[in-house]
């Protein structure tokens, strides 16, 4: 009797086990795979020009597509409103972003804001950050070196009596201030005169182009130096408006700057590889351990380009990205 009962229990267990396994087989073979919710990466940048970030976004997008993540680009209504950028960051965190890629419009303020948040999601800065804490990740070109390279280009190309006007705009970004520092270190004592063009000097709250126009009209200079896209574009617009010419040396990735490199005012352009910045930032945001293993030694390139070499094979892939 006891044996019969044991056999029945065994039969029951066997049937249960087979039923479970059949269900499992059915699930893995005939039901659609329960896909994981894709990760959302928010790329929050300064400025209101989405096209300016196209190349960097392409780099990030390549990684996101490869890893089944979604990438959203958020620009601002203005160039440098830290409060607005904080609000965007806040909103993205609340909306459940899985990782943040931030190009801070004000390095110090945004970093403090992020630090206060004590976020548990990866945050990658896509700009140079001077005061980095342990655990912070920043993907950027060596901005100081870029500034220095641009300065050396001026020293090499221009005479030693040349007057150089340095536009100090957007210096609340560490990338810009580092570039400026690098340039000053390179040209200090090697050019005729250095003029500082800043809003403080001209006590104006008007837009960048207007302030530069005023500066161009006010002070004669041989060379104008700009350190970022918006300032470079503003310089070119100002010169066009004033129907003036000047030698512009710039660090920029804008299409206008590249166009003017061949055709007009820009004498030399230092061009950072923003595609790689986007690619590596997204890689660190989505899989920091893999990125650390594979790309820990990877340095973001930049090139000093002049009209003569802009169509060289290695330069044209940088200056003229395949933009989808």
């Amino acid at each position, binding site marked *: 009797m006891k044996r019969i009962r044991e056999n029945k229990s065994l039969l029951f267990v066997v049937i249960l086990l087979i039923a479970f396994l059949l269900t499992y*087989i059915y699930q893995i*073979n005939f039901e659609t795979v329960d896909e994981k919710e894709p990760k959302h990466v928010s790329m929050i940048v300064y400025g209101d020009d989405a096209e300016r970030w196209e190349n960097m976004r392409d780099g990030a997008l*390549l990684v996101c597509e490869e890893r089944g993540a979604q990438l959203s680009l958020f620009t601002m209504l203005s160039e440098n409103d830290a409060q607005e950028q904080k609000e965007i960051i806040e909103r993205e965190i609340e909306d459940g972003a899985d990782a943040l890629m931030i190009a801070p419009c004000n390095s110090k303020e945004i970093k403090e804001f992020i630090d206060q948040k004590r976020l548990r999601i990866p945050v990658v800065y896509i700009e140079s950050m001077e005061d980095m804490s342990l655990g912070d990740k920043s993907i950027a070109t060596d901005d100081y070196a870029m500034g220095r390279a641009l300065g050396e280009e001026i020293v090499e190309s221009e005479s030693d009596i040349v007057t150089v006007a340095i536009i100090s705009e957007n210096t609340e970004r560490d990338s810009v201030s580092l570039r400026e520092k690098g340039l000053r270190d390179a040209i200090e004592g090697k050019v005729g005169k250095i003029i500082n063009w800043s809003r403080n000097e001209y006590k104006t709250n008007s837009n960048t182009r207007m302030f530069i126009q005023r500066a161009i009209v006010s002070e004669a200079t041989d060379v104008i130096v700009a350190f970022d896209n918006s300032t470079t574009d503003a310089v070119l617009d100002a010169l066009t408006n004033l129907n003036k010419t000047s030698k512009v040396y710039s660090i920029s990735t804008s299409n206008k700057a590249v166009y003017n490199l061949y055709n007009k005012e820009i004498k030399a352009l230092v061009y950072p590889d923003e*595609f790689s910045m986007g*690619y*590596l930032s997204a890689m660190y945001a989505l899989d920091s351990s893999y990125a650390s293993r594979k790309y820990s030694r990877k340095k973001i*390139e930049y090139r000093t380009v002049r009209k003569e070499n802009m169509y060289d094979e290695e330069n044209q892939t940088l200056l003229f*990205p395949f933009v989808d």
Partner: protein
Amino acid sequence: MLEIFSKPVNFIKEGYKKRSLQWTISLSYTAISIISIATLAIAFYSHSINTIRENTIKENEQIVDQVGWNLNSYIRSMMGISDTMYYSVIKNRNLTNERINKEMNLLYEANKDNLTGIVCATEDGAIVAASPVSARKAGVDLKKQEWFQKAVDEIENIHFSTPHVQNIFDNSNYRYFWVVSLSRSVELTYLGNVRNGVLLVDMNYSGIEQMFETVNDGGVGFVYLCDSDGNIIYHPMQKAIYADLVKENNLVHAKHQDGAFSERFDGQERDVVVKTVGYTGWKIISVIPTSELAIDMGNMRNYLFMVAIIVLILIVFGNYIISYVVTDPIRKLEESIADLEEGVSNEDVMNEDDIFIGGSHEIRHLGRTIKSMIRQMKKLTDEMVREQKAKRKSELDALQSQINPHFLYNTLDSVVWMIEGERYRDAISMVTALAQLFRISLSKGNNIISIHDEIVHARNYLNIQMVRYKNKFTASIDVDPAIEDCATIKLIVQPLLENAIYYGVEHMDGEGEIKVRGYEKDGDIYISVSDNGMGIPEETLATLLTDKARSRGKGSGIGLWNVNQRIQIYFKGDYGLMIDSVLDEGTTVTIHLPKIPLEEYQKEEGGR
């Protein structure tokens, strides 16, 4: 070497010996099933994986063929434009006074989806005609352009460049175009004089890009395009490759013959298909990282694993049931035999009807054979018991017959001695006691009598001996009345008394003392005969109950051994005699008997 295997093999053998037949059958078949299914599953898995891989490669070969065909058509159409421009327009015109712009524009407009421009230039780099009409970039020297130099260097061929930015014309709105330049040397006629020039057809790179992007959307792996030197023309990760973030094995692939092969690159196993595109020598390369097949392989592995587990469970369950059905009758037969063994050891009656008969005909036959054997054994055992009993009885009778003449001899010796001494009254008393003694001795032929009769017998014997020995000793008998109705073998006290007299008190001149006590202790009966004689030396004591004692000294020498043997034949176990003797103090011989009422014993005997 063999020792390494012999240990586990022996271990398994020993393990098998300790297990039941059902367990052994189940385990053996299960082990065989596991090995078979695992082998099958692995073979099937390997085959399936290879099939998946081969199918994927075949699919990609088809894709590559399709892309090759599309690309070839595209390139041929571009070459067609170049041919048309050259053979239908340029070659027939005297460029001194005829223009070719109109035809060039028409050709451009008709194909502008795929073209970014058509340019005809002299070998000095002067533009003869261009479409679309646009401002030429200042300072552009066509002669320094790679496509121009190739056309001039190899005039007989049509040349295809790698993708580059078109930098001849100025484009408004900061636009730039990536193009693949198709250039060839052409003959330009000026006033009948032929000069060499270069015709350029700039193919829109996005046309090629779209062609490949369509292919790379979905599916496994990716397809890319490079020229015969390995320069990448299109790659889905082109920008990352340019930025040195991703590596590609393009230089090796470019040198490879058409066909499929496997490689390991950048830590990845990959299947590669190479196909060369006709005139250009470009290579279409399909790359399938094996890891991308891992999902299919993983699904296949899970599926096979699950199926194997289910089949195994069914087999294990089936094995259990089959082995149960096969071995259950054997087990029942074995259990019935074990019960029988247990019964036999417990002296129960052996019953052959308890043997299980069932199951398959072989096992039924086995059961019947065992049953028959048991019947035979039982018959043989009964016969042996009967023989044993008869033998025991004959042995007992022989022992009994040893007593009678021994006792009779002694008694008659006393009577003779009394008559010789004219002690007729004593002789009469003795003969009377002897008669009573013999009456009890005979006991109607029964060997088992009551303790009461045995004590009466002993008392008569004492009376006879006290007369004979002229009261040289005193005797007392103290028996618990509660044991008087219990059974005893007859004539077992008397030989002890005889020994007590002969070896204990015979020479004590009135100081001898014999005590007979009967009592019950721990459910058994004890009858002791004590004397205060000289005692028995230890070495003699050790041999008293052995066979050697039969031939010692006075009398027939069979007393104690005889009594002990008779008790043990009848009652077995621990029953018999115990002798306790201290030199110069005396000897006590104790009879140990089971407590069985005589009536009960007689009933049992009657039952047998």
